């Protein structure tokens, strides 16, 4: 759903920060009366906007779009939520988190690939995570016929990405422990922030014991897999194999 939420942020004539948002929920099997909310957040600063319903999206107008709690768009992210209309109060039906803002030239301002891919001679290994100074790279055997196609396949993603994520977080939290893990611009900081954005809260710190760290990593991988529906992706792959 994340790719179906577009948010742009700009200063109005008074210098107040405002947003425009477009949510495309047509392709989702959501109840027409389900309620839609858009949330803007940065660290602990937060604003929430009523966006109408799935059937009748109602983007806030005029000053209702003011991001009055924010004076700059640095680090600003958005989250869209679709909530059950009745009966099951507060039930979350769909969510798109960590939606980056779009700039005027329609480029994601903060999109930096967390895990770039590259072909490599890995012998008989199909893939591995290589961690260098600039961050982790998902290396894929160059002996595969079309490594890019493999990397983009549902089956590969569903089997490899959760495991790769576990390796990277384990490296950052247990092995590396570089001081720049707190720096949101560093690759370590971006990985920890990404994992945190899955709803886990902040990562373990130096006061956390080993068990807490392992539990946090497990929870991150679990939420990541849930968020991207990895089992369903793999089942879809199997179903398409059978049908073809």
């Amino acid at each position, binding site marked *: 759903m994340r790719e179906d939420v577009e948010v742009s942020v700009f200063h109005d004539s008074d210098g107040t920060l405002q947003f425009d948002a477009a949510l495309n929920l047509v392709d989702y099997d959501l109840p027409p009366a389900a309620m839609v909310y858009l949330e803007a957040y940065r660290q602990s600063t937060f604003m929430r906007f009523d966006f109408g319903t799935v059937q009748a999206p109602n983007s806030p107008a005029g000053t209702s779009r003011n991001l009055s709690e924010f004076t700059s768009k640095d680090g600003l992210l958005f989250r869209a939520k679709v909530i059950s209309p009745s009966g099951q109060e507060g039930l979350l039906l769909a969510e798109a988190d960590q939606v980056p803002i779009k700039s005027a030239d329609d480029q994601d301002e903060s999109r930096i690939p967390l895990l770039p891919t590259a072909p490599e001679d890995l012998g008989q290994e199909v893939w591995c995570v290589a961690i260098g100074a600039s961050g982790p790279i998902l290396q894929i055997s160059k002996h595969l016929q079309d490594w890019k196609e493999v990397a983009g396949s549902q089956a590969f993603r569903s089997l490899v990405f959760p495991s790769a994520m576990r390796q990277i977080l384990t490296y950052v939290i247990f092995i590396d422990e570089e001081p720049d893990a707190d720096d949101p611009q560093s690759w370590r900081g971006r990985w920890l922030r990404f994992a945190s954005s899955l*709803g886990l809260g902040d*990562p373990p710190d130096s006061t956390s014991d080993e068990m807490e760290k392992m539990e946090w990593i497990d929870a991150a991988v679990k939420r990541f897999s849930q968020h991207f529906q990895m089992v369903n992706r793999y089942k879809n792959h199997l179903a398409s194999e059978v049908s073809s």
Partner: protein
Amino acid sequence: MKLHRLNDNGLTRFGQFLDALVTEPIFSVPTELLTHPSCAEVIAPGIEIEQRQFADRMEAAKYLDEILSDVKDRDIPRDAGLWAWLTLFFFDQVCPVDADGSRKVGAQRATWIPQTDVTRRFYRHALLGPYLAYRAHRDAPERGRVLLADPMRVTTSEAFRLFIETAFVNMPAPVELATQFYFNPETQKLRRGAGTKGPGGLRRFLGVLQQLDLTFDLHSLTVERLKALLPNEFGKWTT
């Protein structure tokens, strides 16, 4: 006094003072930095701030919110110079002199000069953290009493840390329920057993919130609805 912020030179000088306090804990507070033109600048003409004695972090945050809501066109939560200046202004309260005449600044510099771009540190500031928590509940501040009941000198409250590290700090029902469960209004402290890691404890409460957050919009839930969703281990707090 006019509300100021420390400039780069002021921040350096304040940092030197904090360093000096580590080895010489009776070093006098350099209040001259507050207004010296080489160290500080007026942040917004016409805005005054006064020395007040605050009973707790809630009272301080309320006062700061009143003052700072009049400041326009500034990214208040990310202005390290402003928060460092406020720390210096209220230094006798956030880092009071002990019985032996010394002050304990500790190793965490972020407590006094905020690291506003560091996710895990920005809220550790003695005044910025409470201000952010208060602002999230300024429509009904008592809801967040469990977060801000500590005296000014206490900057390590577990309830505060657990909440402000997550998005739950902005959510009315989770915060109000935490106050209902874990805050004793008579003692103005956490109830006995609240801080345990075991069943029904505060840490477990946050863990359950994280689970519920996967399937519910906790921001829109009422307190009663959230209470009904909790496992039985929390029943002991409702009686």
